[in-house]
């Protein structure tokens, strides 16, 4: 049985080795991230079956929970780490010859750091440890957004930095308050003592947590940084950011709300928040002409949908939300990867410049269409079962207000369908590309795209693969007591 | 025995219709002449014209040109079979008013098809006017038929005639308004002066009949005579009781004479004036009568 700690140590150590290797072996540096991520994927997949039965608790440094830091590797954690390592592996292959200019080691090092931060948050059981990994994740993503070095990149990175640091400082204050109150940093320990304290005192840390983590998970008023950050970052980075980074914010938010505070009455508000984020995201994406900004706005929209699903609060709802998380991770990274080379070939991010790509880059355009169709939720693709579960969960609540919310959500997806179809029409049915520069993307870019397409269609047709792990992770999130018993055993 | 009577009726009624129709044409020209202080042709002048036309070698523009004329005349003949003439109505029990409404659309389509083949703009203008006119008088006509059907609760015309048997004609029953509306659209259905813009000799050199020579013109005249007969027979059956043959023909004569007077005294409408008129006054009157009938029922 492999110790889950490896999932964190491997990418961390690789991230520090890369700058050292810079002198001797410059060429092989770019092969390290795919290697590490492949290793992570294999480890988390091997752990998955065992973890579903009973979670693994790992004590760092030998001390039992209330004192030492412990890793809580439950089905939720494994699901997230699998998706992180899968998307990370695919994007790193894509980045093999997409990232050519600029200091390559810096990119790969930061890339691995970002992924370690993400895996760390997902696996840790200690609130402060979560904050540390959260900081690693944010800082590396600030640096990566500004990686290309042109003016737009730097400016949006700095904006992202300021808002991100404001958010993390709020989280730090909340952790300090909790530590002052309970004297412990372990989530399970805190959760067990939470009922003994009057709810009004807990109110303030909860609000701070929500706002802090809301910035990273791009909930409506707090996601102003996302469109600039995602559109000016290189495509691989925006794929990782919108595929993984935002979701980790939501994971943290859910972990705080469900496990630590067990504040189930805030879910109604969360649902409303998700709905607003969805509508604002879709509306602002509707009239976009720059393809990457459009995809960024659509990411905020999808995040709204996931938050909305989480807000439903039932077991089926949360597993629907998690399914939507995997759908969005796979489809949005597919969309970003495909547009990466299209923009590279077409020379500009304008949708009008992408006209007629269908003929010149057939495979990439087909992949883009499949990604768009799956995000909208058309049947044979992965988007359909996830929407199927979300709609079912909302309707299972049998209340008129929820049906109105659902109608608005579906209206949002209709708008999303509208602007995606506009792009598809532009690619296939508009204009003739005379210049011959636009030829098919290189092989190393096509392999990840093909893997993602196969995954999307595979899971779309046979969703039973994921449903088992989804249900157990939703169960883990919901029964707080089980978590506490396991962690403090 | 009954079938022999039936076959006899099937043969006799179109002949009666033909004779009466052609007689009406002759009467029409004679009365118009007398109104204009002229001595006027003999009553059998249409027969003479037909004999002369059958003697001329008409020009044909092709297969559809012939088929269209044959179709329209056949349609008119079939229609006659469905309408009770005096006592006899050969095909009363297969479909009633609905089938009459439907078979009525044969004649215009037949003529339109054959005229179209004639490839002459006068014909196209004539056909377009004729179809627009038909559409405009169909609206009140359908209201009238519906009010009749819902009043007598049947779609068979023979039952309607039977219901009016003992002298309470539907003209004087609650259907009075429909009767008035029907009389207002009668000139349009007959194609006489206020509404004869479809075959106006002066403007579009007799519209649809421009390319008809010899026997084609004869067929067109016969079809015109038959449709004259049908429209008036329908009016008499539905609103004036339509008793046995002599009484029936007398009533038809009366209605026809009113028609000729209207023809003699009105100038010709333009087609959009006709549509405006037909869609305004008769439609409102027949609509009101339909509502009245619904309230009574």
């Amino acid at each position, binding site marked *: 049985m492999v110790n889950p700690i490896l999932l964190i140590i491997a990418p961390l150590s690789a991230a520090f080795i890369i700058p050292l290797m810079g002198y001797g072996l410059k060429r092989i540096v770019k092969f390290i991230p795919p290697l590490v991520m492949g290793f992570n994927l294999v480890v988390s997949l091997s752990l998955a079956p065992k973890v579903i039965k009973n979670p693994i608790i790992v004590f760092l440094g030998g001390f039992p929970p209330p004192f030492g830091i412990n890793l809580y590797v439950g089905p939720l954690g494994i699901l997230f780490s699998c998706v992180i390592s899968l998307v990370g592996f695919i994007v790193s292959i894509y980045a093999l010859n997409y990232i050519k200019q600029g200091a390559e080691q810096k990119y790969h090092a930061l890339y691995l750091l970002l992924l370690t931060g993400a895996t760390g948050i997902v696996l840790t059981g200690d609130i402060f440890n979560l904050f540390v990994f959260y900081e690693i994740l944010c800082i590396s993503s600030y640096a990566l957004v500004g990686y290309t070095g042109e003016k737009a990149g730097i400016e949006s990175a700095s904006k992202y930095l300021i808002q991100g640091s404001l958010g993390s400082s709020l989280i730090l204050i909340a952790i300090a308050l909790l530590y002052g109150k309970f004297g412990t940093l372990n989530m399970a320990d805190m959760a067990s003592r939470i009922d003994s304290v009057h709810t009004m005192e807990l109110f303030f840390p909860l609000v701070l947590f929500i706002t802090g983590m809301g910035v990273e998970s791009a909930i409506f008023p707090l996601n102003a940084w996302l469109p600039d950050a995602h559109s000016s970052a290189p495509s691989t980075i925006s794929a990782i950011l919108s595929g993984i980074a935002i979701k980790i914010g939501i994971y943290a938010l859910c972990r705080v709300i469900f496990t630590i505070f067990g504040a189930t009455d805030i879910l109604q508000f969360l649902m409303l928040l998700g709905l607003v984020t969805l509508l604002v995201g879709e509306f602002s994406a509707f009239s976009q002409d720059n393809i990457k900004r459009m995809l960024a706005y659509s990411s905020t929209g999808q995040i709204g949908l996931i938050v909305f699903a989480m807000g439903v609060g039932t077991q089926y709802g949360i597993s629907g939300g998690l399914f939507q998380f995997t759908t969005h991770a796979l489809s949005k990274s597919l969309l970003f990867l495909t547009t990466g080379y299209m923009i590279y070939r077409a020379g500009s991010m304008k949708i009008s410049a992408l006209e007629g790509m269908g003929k010149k880059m057939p495979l990439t355009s087909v992949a883009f269409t499949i990604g768009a169709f799956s995000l909208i939720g058309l049947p044979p693709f992965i988007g359909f079962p996830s929407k199927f579960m979300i709609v079912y969960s909302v309707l299972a609540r049998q209340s008129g207000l929820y049906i109105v919310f659902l109608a608005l959500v579906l209206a949002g997806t209709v708008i999303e369908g509208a602007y995606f179809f*506009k792009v598809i029409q532009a690619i296939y049915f508009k204009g003739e590309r005379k210049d011959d520069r636009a030829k098919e993307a290189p092989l190393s870019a096509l392999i990840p795209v093909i893997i993602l397409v196969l995954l999307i269609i595979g899971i779309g047709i046979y969703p039973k693969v994921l449903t088992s792990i989804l249900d157990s992770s939703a169960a883990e999130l919901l029964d707080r007591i089980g978590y506490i018993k396991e962690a403090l055993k | 025995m009954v079938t022999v009577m039936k076959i006899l009726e099937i043969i006799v009624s179109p002949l009666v219709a033909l004779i009466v129709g052609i007689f009406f044409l002759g009467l029409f020209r004679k009365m118009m002449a007398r109104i204009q202080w002229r001595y006027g042709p003999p009553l059998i002048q249409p027969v003479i014209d037909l004999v002369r036309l059958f*003697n001329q070698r008409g020009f044909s523009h092709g297969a*559809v040109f012939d088929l269209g004329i044959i179709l329209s005349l056949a349609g008119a003949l079939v229609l006659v079979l469905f309408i009770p003439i005096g006592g006899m109505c050969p095909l009363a029990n297969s479909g009633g008013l609905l089938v009459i409404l439907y078979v009525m659309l044969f004649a215009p389509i037949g003529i339109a098809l054959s005229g179209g083949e004639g490839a002459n703009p006068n014909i196209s203008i004539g056909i377009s006017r004729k179809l627009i006119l038909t559409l405009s008088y169909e609206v009140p006509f359908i209201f009238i038929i519906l009010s009749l059907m819902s009043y007598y609760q049947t*779609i068979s015309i023979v039952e309607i005639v039977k219901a009016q048997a003992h002298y309470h004609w539907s003209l004087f029953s609650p259907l009075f308004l429909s009767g008035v509306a029907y009389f207002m659209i009668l000139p349009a259905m007959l194609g006489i002066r206020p509404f004869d813009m479809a075959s106006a000799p002066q403007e579009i050199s007799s519209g649809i009949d421009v390319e008809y020579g010899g026997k084609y013109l004869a067929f067109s005249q016969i079809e015109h005579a038959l449709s004259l007969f049908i429209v008036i027979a329908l009016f008499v059956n539905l609103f004036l009781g339509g008793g046995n043959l002599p009484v029936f023909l007398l009533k038809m004569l009366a209605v026809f004479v009113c028609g000729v007077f209207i023809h003699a005294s009105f100038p010709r409408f333009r087609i959009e004036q006709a549509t405006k008129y037909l869609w305004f006054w008769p439609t409102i009157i027949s609509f009101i009568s339909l509502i009245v009938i619904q309230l009574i029922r």
Partner: protein
Amino acid sequence: MLIQSILIIAFGGAFLTYILGKASSALRDFLAVLISVSLTVLIFLAYGKTGEIAFASFMNLPLVLRINHLSWFFAIAIQTVTTLSVIFSLSYMKGKERVDFYYLMMLLCNSAMLGIVLSGDFVSFYIFWEIMSWSAFLLISYNRGGALYAGMKYIVMSIIGSMCMLIGIMSLYSTYGTLNIREIHDLISTASGEYLLFISILFLAAFGVKSALWPIHVWLPPAHSEAPSPFSAVLSSILIKMGIYGFVLILYVISGAALYLGLGGGSFRYILTLLAAITIIIPTFNALMQDDAKRLLAWSSIAQIGYIILGISIGTSLGLIGGLFHFFNHVAFKALLFLAVGAIEYRTGTRDLNSLGGLIKKMPVTFIAVLAGTFGLIGIPLTNGFVSKWLIYKTLILNNHPFLAFAALVGTWGTILYSYKLIHNIFLGQLPENLEHTKPAPASMKLPFIILSVVIVLFGILPGIPLKLINLITASLGFDLLNINIWGIASESGPLNIINIFAAFAVALIVVWFFFLISGKKVVISQDNSYAAGIDVPKGKYHYTVDFYNPMFRMIKPYFRDYMDEFYSQLVKALASLSDRVRRLYCGDLGVYVIYIVLFLSILVISKIGLNLW
């Protein structure tokens, strides 16, 4: 087992054709025709079978395939039209670019429609419905230019429709736990009135969009006129009918006749019939005003849909039989008319009614096809259109709906006018100079014409054949059986007996023909030898077709402008401006973003302390 093989062949065939298309176009054409013909035969063999098979499961929900008379009736219609239009497009699509894509999408759309009709539960129904929608979208926007806008309009409206359907399906699933149509039919009788109303409205919204009911018909005219002709034939004759299948499914299969009549206190039925009546009147007058042949036919399809829905929603057995039979007839003559217009467009390059004319001498077979099609459309006795329309009128009048009967009858006369405009402007009158040497339609196009014309006339004279089958269907849906003989329905109140009408008409025709032949010789003259007041016929300028019903246009133009279309485009414009304003929220300067965060924090606090929302 037969149903599964049909679907597998259909889907597999579509992809196989695409792959083979890369290799050689002749092979692809042959394969496409082979697949469609074999599917027709297979479906034909499945006549009379009923049964259910669960072929897969999705999210622990069994996906079921089901066949009964109703689905067989629709399936045979779908397959015949697609086979004919595939045969038609062999020569139509020769030389055009991206033909493999065209055949893939055509066969995919066909198999999705078969899937819809054969599906036994709502999940597979929804999956096939979506596949049909977006494959039709890709085909509508096939020829570029204006087609893109039409495709966009189509896909947005159909997605909204399928979203409503998704909510409906899910609420059924959440209340009854199963989505199998048969089980739902048994369980639904316990449902409360409002719930049934809620479900029906949701489903009928989806099916109304697809079958272009009046207020939500806006996508149809541009979509039909921009799609490639063979596909617009499939689109207008079959794809709309999936909405009709949905109507029948919801109103009769799911909720059953008794429940449907009581729905919404009987008012729901009345509203539906009223909508159907409006759907007959407005599009008919719109069709009058069109100058583009395919747009005219598109508007006429909407009008005929009005007839079908009127027949179905009346709720009597005669009405349902009339509605279903009119569905079948409309498939026949609408496919025929669209293919004919496609052939004309293929030969003359234009379908603008103002610049065509006199093609009767050049394309006689196409003329006969259009003639048969329009006679069917109008419903002239001895064509199948007459029988079905007659049934609908009969039930309207007997059930005392005079105003609906009025709408139907005026609709017929409107149909006469615009179908005559079609014949006159294309075939009759003078031949313009540039069409001097147009060749007749190629052989592969003539085959569908002949088959469809025979269907129209045969089922017109012997309506008993299809009526027997439809009788079985209505019996399975809970209506009483009507005694149907080969010649028509011999029911008691004013029976329709085609034999009398047919015999009378035949005799009259023979008598008049004989009289015509014996009455003197005739001189056959050419088309341009026409009376022109003494001068010679001016070539090319002597054909009066521009604005054929101009006086009528001036009268009805202000009233029959497409208000719904304008309403929707205003809606979209408002949406776009709203989205612009929303995008301005992200105005780009950092100070505002930070204020947003603080604002969010304060809202959270106030909502808890002040209003304690949660």
